[in-house]
């Protein structure tokens, strides 16, 4: 259920030469746009370290959008082509660490494409609204207690490891953990 009332935090990394200009063009043309995207201007989409995105998402951003010049149009000739490989790998890596892949997107928008920029922002913001807030790695006292209790049966503590007994496999069963987490 899309939650249209809540404000989300969306970070946009825009290249100086195309997408930032495109966003500016959208503003000059007075298009209506969602206001939740915070723009960070970077020299080139090749400047975007995948860690920027990972850090943003794990620190509380609900979505991250990277936008650069179209391939073959890069101000620095090839920055966005390196970025494309890096960002595509990151896009595939995020589900591995348990972040919905819809929370990150990279697109190409040129300086003249103001209306295209408006569409991108609107669609991406809608998508984030549908996904809801980013789950947090928050630690509460309760979680910590649960984690501590589980220490005893990890494979790192083999003295307390009794194979065959419930819960005593190398990776603990998800159900036990959920029971604790659902209580929060």
């Amino acid at each position, binding site marked *: 259920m899309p939650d249209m009332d809540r404000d989300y935090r969306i970070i946009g990394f825009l290249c100086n030469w195309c997408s930032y200009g495109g966003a500016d063009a959208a503003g000059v043309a007075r298009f209506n746009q969602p206001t939740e995207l915070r723009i960070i201007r970077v020299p080139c989409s090749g400047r975007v370290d*995948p860690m920027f995105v990972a850090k943003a998402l794990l620190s509380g951003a609900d979505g991250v959008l990277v936008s650069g010049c179209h391939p073959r149009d890069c101000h620095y000739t090839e920055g966005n082509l*390196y970025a494309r490989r890096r960002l595509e*790998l990151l896009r595939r890596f995020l589900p591995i660490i*348990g972040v919905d892949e819809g929370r990150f997107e990279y697109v190409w928008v040129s300086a003249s494409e103001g209306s295209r920029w408006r569409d991108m922002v609107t669609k991406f913001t809608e998508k984030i609204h549908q996904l809801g807030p980013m789950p947090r790695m928050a630690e509460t006292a309760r979680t910590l207690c649960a984690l501590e209790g589980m220490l005893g049966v990890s494979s790192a503590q083999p003295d307390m490891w009794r194979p065959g007994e419930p819960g005593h496999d190398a990776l603990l069963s*998800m159900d036990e*953990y959920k029971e604790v987490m659902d209580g929060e």
Partner: protein
Amino acid sequence: MASESSASALSANEPSVNDSAANESSTNASADRMETLRAKIAAELPNVDFVLAYGRGFDPLHATPVTVRGEKDLDRLIFDPTCVQNLATSLYGLRGKRLGVVVKGCDSRSIVQLLQERLWERENLVIFGLPCEGVLDLAKLRATLDIASARAASFTGSPRDGLLRLTFNDDGGHDGERTREIETKGLLADKCLRCQHPNPLVFDHMIGPETLPQGAQDDYADLAALEKLSTQERFDFWKRQMGRCIRCYACRNACPLCVCKHVCLADSREPHWLSAEATLQEKWLFQVMHALHLAGRCTECGECQRSCPMGIPILLLKRMMNRELKELFNYQAGVSLEAIPPLHTFLMEEDRIKDRGLLW
């Protein structure tokens, strides 16, 4: 001294008196191999500062890295399934020297990667390659046995189908037993069960006969369980695993390719990527950073996971990343000196990346 007696019981050139005649041929083969290794190292000693090799550690089931500087150190050399360490980890900190190093097949991939990234000069490295049929995962042994009471250990046959014979302390022993024989097959490290490169890929001296890989292909079967989880469940899985992390950075320090440890972003205040807070978020961000910085470089030697005192399955993360790399760029790190790392290059038209420009 206990360690000395166990070392002599284990060193392959002095078969222990308990060894039955049936085991003699395999013992002789490994004794021959040790003799060859000693001879080769002795011959190279004048050309290098020292040789990094394996010696007996504090108990018969642990090996430790030793530096061979002269003839007298040659007696300390061992090579058996307890030699789990990746000696390539020490290399980067020793650059500028001229070294010899003893490597297994998996370790040689780390060296290939170091050479490919020009972090070492090939001409300053003498590589003694040892084909390897597997090393022990002591955690597997520890699960059923109090390994601290083992006084001596000896291996017979290939680690893939051979036996580990443990002799326990005279007092008490293990459930009154004095010795126990265990099949080594069930004790091998997980990485050995899917090993594709048992023979060193880069070497100056190959010691011993080459051996065959374990399986035809690594099918990433170990990732299936995690694959089945939903994104949220996977998030919870990692959250629970990382809750144990004590931020000791053993994973980083054991990694042969974490070559910027001395200026690591995890310790840096400027830029301040990670704070010193012991929160899950910081711990997890470090692992994510480690995985991202090893993208296209990690050779899955498994040292990060082996060194983790809290048993966090870090290698799982690296393997999942590597599978994506394989799919996306058909690339495997550390197998070719000439290969161009996938993130250091690009194609104008990427055949496996959907055009994101026409997305919406």
